[in-house]
């Protein structure tokens, strides 16, 4: 009752209060929708008009901001020192150069190989060691899906190997870790020597902490791994839990591109300029069957990460383009100005009226 009265009086505008008509009035008014800015589509809005001034200012500001960012990123990228050495070809003895596949698949050949790298500039610690594979499709659908996150996480799900085909079970027992990814684990190893002194390679903390703590269980031990007929890549120490098998964890984070680098370890001392580094490579991993390259990369980092000129160039390009447009617009504005909001430019005013200019 109370609310009814309130709406009646407010809707009637506090005007007529004749008693006989009040019921009729309220009935009529109740049909009327309540006024609000939403229902009348009158919500506040702002639309900047694209005046020449505004457009030119926007472009100039973007240009002025972007170009310095680009320059800074480019110089940061320039400061990163990187040594890349492709060794897949060089590590095959000359007598096998026609049949590299036989060399890599044979268990009797000597897989050791020595490479010498020279440091072009001072490399500040930490120096990151990567291996780079090329033409290797870690993102292939058959490959990417072939893992069992549940099994990796906890011992209880050991038998969860549904997605792992064709490396799910071996001799009726589940493989831990199952799947193609784990099965094809990278197994080249590197040893570094400077002036015949061995450089310490730190292989701790190369994987993500979240992976180690949550995704790979500390109670999951490799079991039945690489025991089948086909041997893929590296074997795992079955006494170490998966959460500490950091090489595996790194490998299991599949790369998105067919050319990718993965972290191998860190050298935690500075490398002087012009130093010669001798690398002893155990060349086991088969990339020869599909013609993929293998590279060893030593790199320092800066705030921008590794060596990457793309971001700097992209920023400079966009910034330059904006400045270029701004200048063009200014010229156009000065040479051939046009009145703003002139209705004679409207299409239906233009055709019959002849020429407004």
């Amino acid at each position, binding site marked *: 009752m109370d609310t009814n009265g309130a709406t009646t009086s407010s809707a009637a505008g506090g005007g007529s209060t004749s008693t006989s008509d009040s019921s009729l009035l309220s009935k009529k008014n109740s049909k*009327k929708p309540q006024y609000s800015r939403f229902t009348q589509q009158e919500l506040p*809005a702002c639309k900047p008009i694209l005046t020449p001034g505004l457009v030119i200012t926007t472009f100039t500001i973007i240009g002025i901001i972007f170009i310095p960012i680009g320059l800074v990123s480019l110089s940061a990228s320039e400061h990163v020192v990187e040594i890349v050495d492709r060794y897949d070809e060089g590590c095959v003895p000359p007598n096998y150069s026609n049949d590299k596949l036989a060399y890599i698949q044979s268990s009797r050949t000597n897989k050791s190989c020595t490479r010498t790298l020279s440091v072009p500039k001072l490399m500040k610690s930490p120096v990151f060691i990567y291996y780079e594979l090329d033409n290797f499709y870690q993102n*292939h659908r058959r490959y*990417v899906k072939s893992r069992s996150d549940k099994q990796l996480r906890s011992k209880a799900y050991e038998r969860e190997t549904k997605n792992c085909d064709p*490396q799910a079970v071996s001799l009726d027992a589940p493989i831990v870790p199952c799947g193609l990814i784990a099965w094809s684990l990278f197994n080249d190893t590197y040893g570094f020597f400077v002036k015949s002194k061995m450089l310490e390679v730190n292989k701790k903390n190369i994987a993500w902490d979240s992976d180690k703590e949550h995704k790979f269980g500390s109670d999951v031990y490799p079991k039945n791994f690489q025991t089948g007929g086909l041997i893929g890549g590296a074997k795992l120490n079955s006494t170490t839990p998966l959460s500490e098998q950091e090489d595996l964890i790194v490998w299991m984070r599949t790369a998105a*591109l067919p050319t990718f*680098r993965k972290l191998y370890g860190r050298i935690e001392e500075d490398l002087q300029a012009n130093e010669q580094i001798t690398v002893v490579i155990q060349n086991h991993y088969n990339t020869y069957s599909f013609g993929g390259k293998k590279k060893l990369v030593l790199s320092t980092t800066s705030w921008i990460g590794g060596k*990457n000129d793309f971001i700097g160039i992209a920023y400079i390009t966009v910034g330059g383009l904006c400045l270029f447009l701004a200048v063009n617009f200014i010229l156009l504005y000065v040479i051939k100005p046009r009145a703003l909001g002139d*209705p004679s430019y409207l299409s239906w005013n233009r055709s019959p009226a002849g020429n407004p200019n």
Partner: protein
Amino acid sequence: MKRFVYINDDESSQELYCDNRISNRKYTVLNFLPKNLWEQFSRFMNQYFLLIACLQLWSLITPVNPASTWGPLIFIFAVSASKEAWDDYNRYLSDKKANEKHIWVVRQGIRKHIQAQDIHVGNIVWLRENDEVPCDLVLIGTSDTQGLCYVETAALDGETDLKTRVIPSACMGMDFELLHKIKGVIECPNPDKDIRRFDANLRLFPPFIDNDLCPLTIKNTLLQSCYLRNTEWACGVAVYTGNETKLGMSRGIPEPKLTAMDAMIDKLTGAIFVFQIVVVMVLGIAGNVWKDTEARKQWYVLYPIEGPWYELLVIPLRFELLCSIMIPISIKVSLDLVKSLYAKFIDWDSEMIDQDTGIPSHATNTAISEDLGQVEYILTDKTGTLTENRMIFRRCCISGIFYGNESGDALKDVKLLNAVAGSSPDVVRFLTVMAICNTVIPIKSKTGAILYKAQSQDEDALVNAAARLHMVYVNKNANILEIRFNGSVIQYEVLETLEFTSDRKRMSVVVKDCQNGKIVLLSKGADEAILPYAYAGQQTRALVEAVEQYAQLGLRTLCLAWRELKEDEYQEWSLMFKEASSTLVDREWRIAEVCQRLEHDFEVLGVTAIEDRLQDGVPETIETLRKAGINFWMLTGDKQNTAIQIALSCNFISPEPKGQLLLIDGKTEGEVCRSLERVLLTMRITSSEPKDVAFVVDGWALEIALKHYRKAFTELAILSRTAICCRVTPSQKAQLVELLKSCDYRTLAIGDGGNDVRMIQQADIGVGISGREGLQAARAADYSIGKFRFLKRLILVHGRYSYNRTAFLSQYSFYKSLVICFIQIFFSFISGVSGTSLFNSVSLMAYNVFYTSVPVLVSVLDKDLSEGTVMQHPQILVYCQAGRLLNPSTFAGWFGRSLFHAIVVFVITIHAYAFEKSEMEELSMVALSGCIWLQAFVVALETNS
């Protein structure tokens, strides 16, 4: 073809016909799920989504979790199913309420209180005042001694005035007790939905006298859902029950209207589907080739040497699923949502509330708001649409003397008042016709004033005017009319009423003067329906002049006539009339023929002129909308001159010399043909000149033109921006709409009366004016508005905004899906064409729903230009009309945009990581957030406010 209803026979007809259980339900509890699913899956889009969802269950090929498709799909289905279920449940409840209402029915000669659903055909049903009629009844008794009762038929036809119903003559004078025992048979047609016709016969059995057939018409019936008013009680025989009543038969779901935009979106969806198939084929073949050449070398993938038989299909199907999001599942939901909002905005608009009645505008059809912005032709009724339909008697011409020409109001003309006071015989006869030649019912209110309940506004105006001139129609008591004139009371007995039909264009009554026993025929009607039938030798020139003069002023004219009948002439004719009235086939036509035999040799008394004022803002509205490039056609039942005058006064056509009117007339085929060709020729010549050319055609010529020269007439219709069609029937109105629609024009029909209903239903958009001729048109229409001038706002503001918003929303929906899809396709090129999904299920779903579908809904409030600007420059509507915002080329623009954006996002994403540690999860997140930022930017850029 016929049904025989045995009155009050408890045994025979029970099983033959259905009982009175009303059921409006579409589903039952058992068939709801299958039926509803079947209905939903009859749409192509839903079939597509179901197919995709089923394919996703195959884990070998699915790139994402099946839940990401099943979830939304089930949601959409659940929403529409529960909406249907809720509607159906409400229908069930209202049915139940109606079915369980208690009704007095005679059973075994005793009145019993039973539920409405147990009424059977043949039962006698008793009703009290203000009861709702539970089924179709033939009236057999009322509390009124004359056998009259009053009903309100608002629920049936929307007309709010009271109508009289009368018991058949055979049942006259039966008393209360007798009505319980009455026996007889009613012969009536099988159930149909015509609420204006009931051609049946009644024969009572002995001992109830009167063994001949007694004809029954709609006047003898009480139809379901009407209300009994002003009558203490009434009883009738149930003839149609349950869903077989006239109301039940006329119920039906009108075919859903599809907007031009929906059709375009469907077409574009089809194009995308084809594109998708092409992409899938190309990538599928590439994938298989790559697999056979490259992947076999990739030892770590461990492809088996021999795959299963379906191996070749696996990669194409994977790509099909990967690309399935090209057709976004969200588009249907978003569009339905915004469309219902558009409709709500129309309902809410405070500028479209009729100030007189306080009734807001209403969008009955919530799905076609965009079409309002694309209207090209408006076909409008005249009376009540352009004009107010508030008839005022202004002038008259009685036996050659013009009244009211000086003051513009005959009621104040001293000459006329003097003539009335002096009881000039011509004037008295004229006034008598004005007062009693009608179907008006006078009702005495408590204060003693007499109120007239009239079905037609013209009759109302005439009776009221007669009363002002001291010829007061006081009372109607069955067949006896009472008129008070200058203090004396005159009584007439009504013998027959020859009702008005739009074909005859006149109505007559045969009355007997109770004082001297003379029988007189009183007629009124359109000039061409009266003047040719004047007795030979009457000078009709003055009358013709009067008619023309009044029509020039835009007044509605009626000719009044009378003729004294000889007793035997009447008796002879009366028999024929009775026979015609009781025929079952072609009754209307037979009656018209019989009427024709009486209505001749008139003594034409004079002409009345009734003014019907233009509604507020009509000329401005028409001018604005014409500027917006909309063509107007006026379709009216009125006569040519009146129509032209109204057309001139509301900017419909321009006066000479700027405008030019071309007449198409002729009575024969040849004449019409020549006239048509001539007009067509002129039209072709002048089409280059900036001249307003309009053609005028009347109903007769139109009939011939449509029948024999359809092609020429169609060409004319395309050339002409304006047309006036007068003297047209409701079905011709609908035919004209059909004609324009067949030329691929978007039509809007606007009208207010029952005669506009067909045109309104036929047109792409029907607008009804909730006017004085009842609500029939407003009910049938997609939009109902209070005044004609709201049409401007409806089209320019609501229609235009709706079009713009939907154009953006639908194309954006495709665009955002395409962006993601293109990225997936690009990624497949660097993942060995194996169909790997870059994005995981959760990201895809979140992207499709939260990041894109929801934010873009702000566009329902988007305004590219302010309402004021649009109203000032209505030409801007051309953009909507021509569909410039949603067509294959704009869509191609969006398509290109999505391709470009996908390339930018993809290139930046893969390069930003260089070759260092580019992990799938990271890359997918970077690409996704790139897309999301881009979407936010695009929406911000594209919305205009």
